[in-house]
């Protein structure tokens, strides 16, 4: 049985790091020999989670985002963590089209995309103690 492999990345909460995070996860994932579709799915999910950390978690201000990417057997796990404002009602936040961003600026579909493109999405959050999104996907069915 192959050992779990894990990479941890800490980065500033700036929009430029959204693309860095997306591609870094793709580079890591490539060791699992994914299809183009699988890699696109994962990149989309990572984008949404990191964008949420930048925009909602830190509300455009300073902060650190932690990305933990790991592979165990054929399952990829991506954790995206911020120490920002947190979410009061996680279930509500995850409803399709729900957004707290003002007038039509965001679609409210971020969590729905994560759920559509990954097999499992877990959100742990509380006001004042930040948000951790853990996403899993089996690669190569």
């Amino acid at each position: 049985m192959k050992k779990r492999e894990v990479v941890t990345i800490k980065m500033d909460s700036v929009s430029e790091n959204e693309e860095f995070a997306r591609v870094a996860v793709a580079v890591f994932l490539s060791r699992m020999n994914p299809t183009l579709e699988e890699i696109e799915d994962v990149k989309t999910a990572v984008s949404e989670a990191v964008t949420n950390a930048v925009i909602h978690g830190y509300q455009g201000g300073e902060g650190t985002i932690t990305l933990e990417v790991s592979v165990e057997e054929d399952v990829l796990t991506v954790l995206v963590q911020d120490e920002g404002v947190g979410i009061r009602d996680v279930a509500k936040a995850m409803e399709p089209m729900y957004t707290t961003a003002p007038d039509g600026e965001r679609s409210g579909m971020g969590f729905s995309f994560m759920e559509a493109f990954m097999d499992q999405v877990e959100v742990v959050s509380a006001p004042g103690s930040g948000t951790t999104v853990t996403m899993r996907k089996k690669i190569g069915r």
Partner: protein
Amino acid sequence: LGEVRRYLRDNNSIRVSRSLRDTAYKAIYARENLMKKNMKEPTIMEIADEVGLSKEEITYAMDAIQTPMSLYEPVYT
């Protein structure tokens, strides 16, 4: 029908390595064009604009082909 099915299946399962190679070749081609046009080494942003992908994607793709610099170095004669 078998043909169509095989086509769909093949296209759904394009390995990422192939798509990266395609991107890298586009980037090399773009670099050559920019070199000819501007007579100087283009930057990653200029190449990314030409190809229509992010500079991060291009950078990643360039690593996928282990092309030594000499292979896409223009030939000075």
